[in-house]
């Protein structure tokens, strides 16, 4: 390896070789199957391969070591960016070429390439901003998606977008140059002064250890969900204004807005389940492990913070909708949806509970310190809902077939029975405060959801629905035990 370019490229490859191989295998599979639209399954695999490729280039910060390499700042920036663009274009071509019925879209190719540039520029330049960086990348994704959907003139839009790509390269180059010449990000980057707003910023003492720990959990990860939801609402607002005269699109956008806390809570819940929100390390840091706090109390605090995050996110959404509907929502569309406001309000209540549920249900895996458990839990969290959407038709077929439905019912019943048996055992071994709180909240939420389901779809089979909704309580009861195992390593 004689050239610095080859060495930089090798570093990217060696850092994420498993993911690269996974993308290669998935793409080969998709190509052999006939492209991304060949079946719902290839669609899912295609999406996964794109997500993984962005993961490969998710260089969360420029390590100091790399900044001291004897290469120009331009080269330091250009090599990963060029590799990223070439990889994403290749991936796009390989997934779309075998279709035959249409050619790959120029605009989509440019959008993918430029989004990769903007993504990398944002990961570097906003490295020290944590929440803001995630929100910025999320907002960028929405903007690119909207451009892809709404653009009418493909060629001129592609040229404009390419200009944005050049700006991203320039921004990253300038940033790296400044960091190198000034000797540090903190000193050189004026935006560093902007901070995530402190919640409870006064310096008065905390009332209790639980209060202090809740403050820490909120600052470290709990605030992410409301901040992301708030950022996305800001991104949605101009679109909502743009489509105000279009009733069907307005209703679709409203539905998306109302579903947003749930969608965002899925990945945030995966990160929130870890001992440290922003770290890949799943072990409990010594500074936290030596705090005189019981593991069950710690889990209870995380659950309380999750409840606050869910409630705040929904408050933001409701405040936004409360402004949007009377001020600039399409009048015809408003008349169309108004009769359903009672149902919508009831669903909003369920939304808060389900959002909280998505934030806490994986605590047992994230706090366990086991990478395999955490990875399996995270993958299922993100891809089960996507798979459910993609395999929508197959699921409907399943529900229409009494024979297969019976098999599913019995399988689920056995699994639920096993879970309840484990829950009973965990009940006996978990702390009193934790278990009574968890059971109370979980029970109330499950009854509410069951009632809602009965009201919407009829009361037949409701005990089964209730049993299935209640079953994940096993995982919540297990969380203090898995945390204790991680904290007091065997």
């Amino acid at each position, binding site marked *: 390896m004689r050239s610095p370019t080859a060495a930089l490229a090798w570093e990217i490859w060696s850092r994420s070789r498993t993911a690269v191989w996974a993308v290669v295998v998935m793409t080969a599979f998709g190509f052999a199957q006939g492209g991304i639209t060949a079946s719902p399954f290839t669609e899912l695999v295609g999406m996964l391969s794109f997500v993984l490729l962005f993961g490969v280039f998710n260089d969360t910060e420029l390590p100091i070591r790399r900044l001291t390499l004897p290469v120009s700042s331009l080269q330091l920036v250009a090599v990963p960016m060029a590799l990223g663009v070439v990889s994403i274009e290749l991936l796009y071509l390989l997934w779309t070429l075998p279709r035959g019925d249409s050619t790959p879209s120029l605009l989509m190719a440019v959008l993918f390439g430029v989004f990769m540039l903007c993504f990398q520029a944002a990961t570097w330049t906003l490295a020290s901003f944590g929440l803001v960086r995630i929100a910025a990348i999320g907002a960028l994704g929405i903007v690119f998606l909207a451009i892809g959907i709404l653009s009418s003139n493909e060629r001129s839009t592609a040229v404009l977008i390419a200009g944005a790509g050049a700006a991203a390269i320039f921004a990253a180059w300038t940033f790296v140059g400044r960091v190198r010449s000034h000797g540090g990000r903190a000193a050189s980057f004026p935006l560093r002064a902007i901070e995530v707003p402190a919640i409870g910023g006064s310096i008065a003492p*905390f009332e209790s250890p639980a209060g202090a720990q809740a403050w820490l959990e909120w600052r470290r990860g709990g605030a992410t969900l409301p901040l992301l939801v708030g950022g996305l609402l800001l991104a949605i607002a101009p679109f909502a204004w743009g489509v105000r005269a279009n009733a069907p699109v307005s209703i679709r956008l409203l539905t998306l807005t109302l579903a947003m806390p749930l969608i965002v809570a899925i990945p945030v819940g995966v990160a929130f389940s870890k001992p440290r929100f922003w770290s890949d390390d799943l072990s409990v840091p010594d*500074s936290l492990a*030596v705090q*005189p706090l*019981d593991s069950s109390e710690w889990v209870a605090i995380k659950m309380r913070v999750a409840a606050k995050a869910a409630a705040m996110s929904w408050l933001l959404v409701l405040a936004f909708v409360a402004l949007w509907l009377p001020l600039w929502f399409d009048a015809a569309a408003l008349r169309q949806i108004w009769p359903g406001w009672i149902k919508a309000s009831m669903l909003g209540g369920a939304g808060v509970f389900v959002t909280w549920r998505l934030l806490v249900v994986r605590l047992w895996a994230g706090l366990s310190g086991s990478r395999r458990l955490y990875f399996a839990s995270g993958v299922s969290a993100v891809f089960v809902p996507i798979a459910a959407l993609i395999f929508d038709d197959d699921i409907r077929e399943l529900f229409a077939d009494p024979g297969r439905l019976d098999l599913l019912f019995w399988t689920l019943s056995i699994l639920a029975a096993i879970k309840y048996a484990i829950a009973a055992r965990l009940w006996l071994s978990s702390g009193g405060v934790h278990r009574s709180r968890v059971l109370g909240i979980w029970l109330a939420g499950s009854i509410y959801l069951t009632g809602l389901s009965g009201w919407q779809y009829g009361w037949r089979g409701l005990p089964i629905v209730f049993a299935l909704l209640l079953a994940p309580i096993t995982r919540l009861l297990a969380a203090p035990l898995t945390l204790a195992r991680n*904290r007091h390593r065997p």
Partner: protein
Amino acid sequence: MPDSVIEIARLSRAFGTKKALDDVSLSVPRGSVFGLVGENGAGKSTLIKHILGLWRAQAGTVSVFGADPVLQPAAVLRRIGYLSEQPDLADWMRVDELLRYTSAFYPNWDPAYAESLRAQFGLDPRARVATLSKGQRAKLGLLAAQAHRPDLLLLDEPSSGLDPIVRRDILEAIIRAVADDGRTVLFSSHLLDEVERVSDHLAMLHQGRLILCAPLDQIKARHSRVVLRFATPQARPPAMTGAVFLNGGDRHWTAICDSSRIAAPIAFGAMGASIVEESPASLDEIFLAHAG
């Protein structure tokens, strides 16, 4: 109330095939300054993590203030102040936020004492932890570990890689802790002069085994450095029961002797060696002799 703050009995821990702790038993008396020494990888940090309850004993038992730190972490940790070699502090917090956060966990937190330490250490309360130097981080960690006047102060290589001024602050903190009645300090260090200055008890770990554990005065009193002259040249180090370490060649050999094992002069006389010089062994020499 037991006289020992920490009681460890037959503690063993292995990482794969490597034994990090091998049948270690020790007792840390209340009010003592207990120095823990050993080479890199000897098992010092592993032992301290067991005392904190961060590791569960694979074999043997650990008792701190009469309780198991794994089973009753909150009760035990409330009485401990802990500082590690690289204090794991939340970078995004300000100094005052970190102190406010930490204080909430300790009912005995003394705000006036914390403030006096902060002023003494020259820490800006509005400074972000991320912007502090290594020495300042160590001071902040020490402040957080000390301001609740813990019954047990656990310091894991606290002064490793720090400048002499910060090291002095850490030693003063140990002395301050001892000045408070009934407080106990356990600290591990590579710097034997530090250990010698402040410890009254010493434990020496070597490859996971406890090879020495006694009051420091006793250890120093029973070890001596003896220069020997043999009547005939010795081709290889002579086998002597009382000597834990031998160095030299031909007729002249230097031995570090442990008088608890044998009365050295009698043994040497029996082997045809005369004592040229005898002096107290330094802690460095004792350490090297045992870790050899």
